[in-house]
């Protein structure tokens, strides 16, 4: 009985101490014949969806199948992706690792996908210098001698305090904003404010014709779909080649 008491006491004293040792996990433990490929390997940083995101960090509502083209010309079909407009990163799903990762931007040239809400979309990576990055993903709305691009950015905006779904008190909400850009042949990106005056500045020789086209097509609001409609009409009229 006394021996049992001593044994239990020792166990109670030892139990709280957690022993640390290095894991025997290896980098190649998920590699199999399914991993073999003669193409470059897609690389990136492991991504964990923040518990507070509520899906609002993403532009797309769900993971979609995309075609990704790398800067070296290689094409990867049917990669499950979701564009994170908060980080301006493309989040991909690796089925062999069963995990998400943000694909390295420096290897991506462009990606294309079909969204049930937005239809066919092509995103290209272009140079852009600001304090956060030197490259951004832009959605190509119209592609020609003059291309119309849009940059989606999810920003935090101050609001009055509220309780979110997880029960935390918050005073910010995530809002998706669109910024439009024009890309000309000289590869210079210029910000484009979607209003009638901007069109006149873009096509100074055809100001009158531009106004007529906008009026004829009843384009009064300058959202993405109307901008595509406007540029298509300009192309038909021979203003944009």
């Amino acid at each position, binding site marked *: 009985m006394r021996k049992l008491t001593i044994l239990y006491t020792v166990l109670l004293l030892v139990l709280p101490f957690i022993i640390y040792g*290095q*894991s*025997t*996990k*290896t*980098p*190649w*433990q*998920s*590699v*199999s*014949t*399914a*991993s*073999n*490929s*003669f193409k*470059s*390997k*897609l*690389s*990136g*940083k*492991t991504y*964990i969806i923040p518990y507070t995101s509520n899906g609002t960090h993403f532009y797309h509502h769900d993971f979609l199948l995309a075609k990704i083209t790398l*800067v*070296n010309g290689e094409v990867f079909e049917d990669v499950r992706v979701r564009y994170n407009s908060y980080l301006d990163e493309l989040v991909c799903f*690796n089925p*062999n*690792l069963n*995990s998400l*990762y943000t694909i*390295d931007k*420096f*290897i991506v040239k462009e990606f294309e996908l079909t969204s049930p809400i937005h239809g066919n979309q092509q995103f290209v990576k272009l140079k852009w210098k600001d304090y956060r990055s030197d490259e951004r993903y832009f959605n190509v709305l119209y592609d020609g001698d003059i291309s119309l691009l849009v940059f989606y950015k999810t920003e935090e905006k101050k609001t009055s305090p509220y309780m979110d779904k997880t029960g935390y008190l918050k005073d910010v909400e995530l809002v998706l904003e669109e910024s439009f850009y024009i890309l000309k042949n000289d590869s210079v990106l210029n910000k484009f404010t979607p209003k009638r005056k901007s069109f006149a500045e873009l096509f100074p020789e055809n100001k009158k014709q531009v106004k007529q086209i906008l009026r004829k097509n009843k384009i009064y609001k300058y959202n993405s779909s109307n901008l595509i409609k406007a540029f298509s009409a300009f192309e038909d009229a021979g203003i944009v080649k």
Partner: protein
Amino acid sequence: MFVLLDMGLFSKAQIYTDEKVVFTTDRSSCVSGDTVWLIINLFSSNPEFSNIVHFQLDTENNKHITKSIIKCEQKKGNGYLVVPDSLSSGIYFLKAFTNFQKYASSAQVQEKTLVVYNRFEEEIKTFKKPVLLDSDQIIRSSNFNIKSSKQIIHPDEKINLSFLIPDSLKNSIADLILDVRLYDPFSDNIVTDFTKTIIRKNNGEPLKEINGILISGEVLNSATSKPESGVTVMLSIADSIPYFDYYFSDRDGKFYFYLKDIGGLADLIIQPAPEPNKSFQIKLFNNFIETPENYLEEITLKNEEAKVIDNILITSRYAKYFNLPEINTNRTFIKPSRFKYPFYGKPTTTVYPREFINLDNFNEISRELLQASRYRERKDTALLSLINFETNDFFESSPFILLNGIPIFDTKLLINRNSESIDRIDIIAEQRCFGDMLFDGVLAVYLNDKSLSWLNNNHNIFRFDYQTVQNPANKKQNKNTSKMEPNSPDFRKVVFWKRLNYNGKKIQNEIKMPHIKGDYIVTVSAVTETGKLLIDTSKITVK
């Protein structure tokens, strides 16, 4: 002579279902140590086709002597094959193929004989010539009306050569080559081009090599010497932006790597992922084909033939004395294309130890300079882990450690490194994936010494010098002389060898004859769009 036997590589009506290589050489015979030049045409009905052609020189019983890998552009290529200096006199066989052909069923390749005279032989009286069945041989002769501007030609004199493609062929010429060289009565009367079917030995990857080459090998269990399946084999090429790839060995223990945009002599580091209680060997395959053996019969050379061969050997020796411009075999390694950053991504931080005080070992370096790391030495190993900046906690397992871009799994190689030996250290303090490999952080140490001499004592890392795609050659002066003397004699055996631009009209070329007197053979080779090789020859004499 107008003979056209439609026994070419393709029938007229055939649409190519396979790839086919048609090639010509600048000579029918050579002296050991010579460079044989090649002009290549590729044929394929598929919009996507290989542009890498493998050339091999074999004996009659498939013993491989040497090899070249040549890259083609728009289905045409130029290259060379250096015949080893020590090769014995005899008849050898040049074969050309693409990797896709090697594994395609019933693929046929062109074989061409090459007669080699060993430069150290004094007198050659007997030789062997191939015995070929009529059905194997392809004789494609045509009449191109070859004419010379002069009948009597003196050494060092310029002449004009002209020829005309018949109207019936005008619209079907894919390539046209003019060759003027010293006539060899022996080799020029036995040289044949013929087709052979590749003997398929092992199943492999019928990959179309486009701007890249397929490297294959097998991993063997050291204890049993048998191929081992299910081993992750890693390939590295050391550099400031290192190349890295992996392959999971198949059920036959084989692995494959496809290296794009590579050239020259590559220093490949291949290692199997370590497994407890197991060691492996790596065997790398050279990409050769086997074709049915050729039979040779011994014949006695005629006096005229033996005399010309003697002259060829003497000319070759004199050419060396007078420093004839030699080919510069450019083996500079052209690295495979990579991205802006290494495979492990943009570093979280890079440390340059030279910017700090000198630290004697890696323990001190990690403590003083590597803020995101935890380093513990135990006996003669070290345990290392990095902070995960996403979670602000240490990773449970050790990072992927690289030394000069080569993965290492024995931390002993790091322990005694001091600041002076290290150029930079890249730290990636995040979990990274590379395909299906997952790294709990990466620590890449780049040494000032790029020689990789530290690999010598490591039994799990295998190093190979692998000849990849041939770099374009540059003709240069012999390195033992400052420059060619203007009055040096011209001992060229091949006077003219060029792919011509054909515009449907009569072709004329001015050629300066060398100082060697004797007969020269003018060969016009036309490759048709259906892959037929048509040849016409004419002789001219320098007196």
